[in-house]
């Protein structure tokens, strides 16, 4: 049967869903509606290689327009401002109306903003999309002392890049450690040391009381009455799912769009995938919302299969990375449900990994090391987690023993 399938949101989950639908359904119309005037592109390089000029705009797209044309996938740059789920219609700001038989919502997430006085609204920058990255890149070329508000992944990746551009960087974090939402403190401390060794200043446990403009620069007053003088301010203080469009509809929302393990929402024929979805994970037996590259891709693929009628559970073990200076940090599974922690390695040059176990099985792990040093073990850990293997803790803790030994074939 030929259906109209609309994918609302032109990011990674959207494009991977579209291509997966086409793999399983050669007839239906597939249209991606994206708010940015650019084919779906990779965001991870924006805070790193794009700022460092190692990657250009044209290197970022997942697929060229030729690939989309060959697979008969349409992409339209349009902003939708109303949804009528009952009559299966989307309404664009310009008056256009789109009808669908199946809808995938992959609107992603958006940056939380600082509450600032109106006269400062345009003075603090955020980084999520290419336009923002371009603006930051252009402006910082003329600035020296840059303050980053928020010591999470995005803030620290920008701090690493700007340091490599010879800028004086200050990171202000409200919590008592960096990356506190997801990363164990010992790993965060290793990353913090690397920033400090490269000349970045890290300020923890401080809140911002006030920002004042002064002669084209800024003064940031902290809650201990200290003052930071700075030329430029970037904030990375977390994100929220992009669901405003659905707030007054029947779609069930709770920290994003609530979906089951098949990417189905509370409304028939409406699916959600990627950052915007608070999905049920059958392995962990709980709902979760993830913001990562691997998840956006795999969740999009899973939604694509289900939309095309190939019923498929989403069971992917979460995985994410962050690159800062010469370090590669990786996290797999979940690290907040455990009864035992096992440490592997003690030297960041060879990689340090913390495994989080429950009932002698790995639930998650987090590692950091010089580029290349933790990836293989973290990947094996994902496989061990997925297979629900009871692990030999002696092998886990001994860096001289390969983890491959633990995989039962």
């Amino acid at each position, binding site marked *: 049967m030929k259906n109209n399938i609309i994918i609302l949101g032109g990011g990674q989950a959207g494009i991977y869903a579209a291509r997966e639908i086409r793999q399983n359904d050669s007839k239906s119309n597939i249209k991606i509606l994206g708010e940015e005037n650019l084919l779906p592109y*990779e965001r*991870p390089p924006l805070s790193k*290689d794009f700022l460092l000029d190692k990657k250009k705009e044209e290197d970022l797209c*997942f697929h060229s327009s030729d690939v989309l044309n060959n697979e008969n996938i349409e992409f339209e740059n349009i902003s939708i401002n109303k949804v009528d789920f009952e009559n299966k219609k989307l309404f664009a700001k310009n008056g256009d109306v789109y009808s669908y038989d199946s809808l995938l919502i992959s609107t992603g997430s958006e940056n939380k903003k600082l509450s600032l006085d109106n006269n400062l609204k345009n003075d603090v920058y955020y980084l999520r999309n290419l336009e923002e990255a371009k603006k930051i890149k252009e402006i910082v070329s003329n600035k020296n002392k840059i303050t980053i508000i928020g010591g999470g992944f995005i803030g620290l990746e920008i701090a690493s890049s700007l340091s490599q551009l010879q800028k004086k960087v200050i990171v202000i974090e409200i919590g008592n450690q960096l990356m506190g939402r997801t990363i164990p403190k010992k790993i965060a401390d290793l990353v913090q040391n690397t920033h400090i060794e490269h000349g970045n200043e890290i300020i923890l446990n401080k809140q911002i009381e006030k920002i004042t403009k002064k002669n084209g620069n800024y003064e940031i007053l902290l809650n201990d009455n200290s003052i930071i003088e700075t030329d430029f301010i970037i904030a990375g203080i977390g994100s929220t799912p992009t669901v405003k469009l659905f707030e007054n509809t029947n779609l069930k929302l709770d920290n994003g769009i609530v979906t089951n393990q098949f990417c189905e929402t509370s409304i028939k024929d409406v699916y959600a995938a990627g950052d915007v979805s608070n999905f049920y994970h059958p392995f962990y037996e709980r709902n979760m919302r993830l913001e990562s*590259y*691997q998840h956006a*891709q795999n969740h999009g693929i899973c939604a694509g299969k289900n939309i095309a009628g190939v019923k498929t559970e989403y069971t992917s073990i979460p*995985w994410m*990375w962050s*690159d800062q200076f010469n370090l*590669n940090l990786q996290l797999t599974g979940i690290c907040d449900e455990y009864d035992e922690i096992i440490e592997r390695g003690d030297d960041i040059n060879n990689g340090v990994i913390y495994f989080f176990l429950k009932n002698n099985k790995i639930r998650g792990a987090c590692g950091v090391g010089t*580029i*290349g*040093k*933790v*990836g*293989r073990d973290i*990947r*094996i850990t994902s496989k061990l987690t997925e297979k629900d293997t009871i692990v030999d803790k002696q092998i886990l803790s001994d860096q001289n023993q390969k983890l*491959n030994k633990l995989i039962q074939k």
Partner: protein
Amino acid sequence: MSEENWIEVGSTDSIEEEDLIRFDHQDKTFCVYRLTDGFYATDGICTHESVHLEDGLVMDDEIECPMHQGIFNIKSGEALSPPACEDLKTYPVKVDNDKIFIKID
């Protein structure tokens, strides 16, 4: 192709099955793999970002980059999973008297 292009990498027992070794030759890095059905060779640096594949995971016929999990088919060099999208160059391999040789262009 002349005989000189076959470069000796090492002995066959220097690589465990389903594993690899790194081999550097004239400013270039290669990876030489031992799979269940023989030996294979590819470039040693991921096509996505410049990281050595020697620290990657070999599973079946695939090598997975340790940095961002880009996956390549070891035999064909084909990039199988993003963020890797550019194929990895492969090289012919021969074994002679328990020694592994790779043919470099």
